[in-house]
């Protein structure tokens, strides 16, 4: 690990001021950042510990939604009465991720900002990784790409400086995408609100950037709109072992039902792209329709449109389609009927 200076911030203003210096990173739970520092993938000059900021509240907001402080831990968020009752999709997604120990440490802001688990990004002994070393190429494209993207990736060959088939590994973010959350951030120039769909980005021609957060900006909260999917929600996670493993594919499905008819839907996939994968047309296609296997399969086709796999991850395309149908089917049966 590279040496770094450590400081503790006790106010947002202090944290933002400290973040002006080059090479400064905020330290929340540390479960991703400290890990990556050990691998020398991240080499901050200064760490600003934000664990003592007053960002730990979950509160109701006008219009019926909730606001989640950036330092709320994943375990506390999953177990908060408002989340359990109104946003079971989020609780399920959180509890599907990592381990109890890690969830006690992991924060809401840190989870949003966690980096890809691409083997080649995480191991500096591979020289080609456009995300870690811009312009160096992509070792995953012709490497072992089982956990990699099938949608929205940039593929211009292994030596192109634009190629990237990394995925965003978060479970929490997939639920937040389906719930149409917004991210509240604060910079030295003021505050702004970023719709969830615009927070994470596709690699485009710059795979080094995961999000649209600007240098030095602090995430202060995530807000969720009023709950629509409390009664019919299911988070499906397919992985190589049943616990303590990242998703190969995951599906967050929320339905607002009227008898057997769908009034509205929230639908997103994880493990398939550089960001949580949500196509509003798939949700629209479900609205007003019967909760039937055919309609679910149609939504899956819209979501998976244009999917392209590689040597080791082609199976994900069919797995994702089946996963979408399954998640919607279980959601339609009711949140507490999932067994």
């Amino acid at each position, binding site marked *: 690990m590279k040496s*770094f200076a450590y400081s503790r911030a006790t106010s947002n203003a202090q944290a933002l001021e400290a973040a002006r210096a080059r090479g400064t990173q905020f330290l929340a739970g540390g479960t991703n950042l400290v890990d990556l520092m050990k691998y*020398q993938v991240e080499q901050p000059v200064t760490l600003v510990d934000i664990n003592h900021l007053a960002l730990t509240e979950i509160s109701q907001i006008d219009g019926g939604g909730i606001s989640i402080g950036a330092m709320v831990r994943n375990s506390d968020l999953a*177990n908060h009465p408002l989340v359990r009752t109104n946003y*079971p999709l989020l609780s399920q997604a959180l509890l599907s991720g990592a381990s109890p120990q890690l969830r*006690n440490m992991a924060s809401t802001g840190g989870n949003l900002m966690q980096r890809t688990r691409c083997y080649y990004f995480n191991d500096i002994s591979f020289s080609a990784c456009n995300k870690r070393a811009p312009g160096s190429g992509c070792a995953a494209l012709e*490497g072992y790409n089982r956990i990699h993207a099938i949608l929205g990736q940039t593929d211009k060959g292994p030596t192109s400086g634009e190629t990237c088939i990394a995925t965003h590994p978060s479970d929490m973010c997939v639920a937040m995408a389906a719930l149409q959350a917004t991210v509240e951030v604060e910079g030295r120039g003021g505050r702004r609100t970023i719709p969830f769909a615009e927070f994470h980005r596709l690699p485009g021609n710059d795979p080094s950037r995961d999000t649209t957060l600007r240098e030095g900006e602090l995430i202060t909260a995530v807000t969720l709109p009023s709950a629509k999917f409390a009664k019919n929600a299911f988070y499906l996670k397919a992985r190589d072992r049943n*616990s*303590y493993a990242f998703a190969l594919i995951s599906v967050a499905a929320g339905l607002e039902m009227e008898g057997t008819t769908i009034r509205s839907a929230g639908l997103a996939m994880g493990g398939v792209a550089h960001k949580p994968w949500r196509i509003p047309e798939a949700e629209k296609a479900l609205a007003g329709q019967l909760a039937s296997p055919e309609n679910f399969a149609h939504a899956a086709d819209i979501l998976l449109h244009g999917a392209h796999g590689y040597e080791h991850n082609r199976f994900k395309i069919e797995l994702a389609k089946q996963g979408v149908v399954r998640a919607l089917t279980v959601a339609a049966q009711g949140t507490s009927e999932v067994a």
Partner: protein
Amino acid sequence: MTPFTNKPSPSQPHADNTEVLTDVLEPRICASELNAESAEEIEELERHGLLSEISRRRFIQASSALAASLAFGMPGFIEAQEATHNATVTLKVNGKPQTLSLDSRTSLLDALREHMDMTGTKKGCDHGQCGACTVLIDGRRVNSCLTLAFVSEGAEITTIEGLAKTSDPKAIEDLSAVQAAFLMHDGYQCGYCTPGQIISATAAITEQQKGELSIVSWHSGKNDQPELTDDEIRERMSGNICRCGAYPNIVAAVRAASKGASA
């Protein structure tokens, strides 16, 4: 241990054992050692994405520092190197505050094991993947390998050494219910993962008593006040890997302890 990835191993440069060695040595290498190498050269290597080359060179430097200290019989040689960011930190472990001078890079795990002589807490993977390093911070279970010592200043840290009812337990009655249950149920083989398992189980039982959910609670429709069924125990204990596969007995021990029994 890398349970998350079927990672293809890179042909170079570090086999597992070198990685461990680098880990042990690296925190003690100070910036001046690298001065021999021009900053430009490093930048050039970085520009070409040749980070592995940089890390290889650092490793060689570290190894020669070690070799030198061994050859000249100066065990304090590496330790005496000035670390770049040292500071005084007070850690409160099992009720007792201790003030240490630590490099900012020191994990809570290394602080406990290397600086406080508390070797009960184990290092398995050093990357959050095994749970051997589990401790309680303010009553919550966390991985001490991913917790920086500086971050845990001001918190109440509980390790396996602090679980028993007395400071010097002599009989099974002196142990905590979970410790006793692991003994009674043979919840281990080699015992390496056991401190982490016991700390984790202690917290898991408290969490369940507070009504906290796991994904199994949702999947079994018990998302109100879940009971500690064996499925629940397995899921809630899944942050602790046992390489010996003592899982059935671990589940039995946790089940017994959760019912207030040891046997």
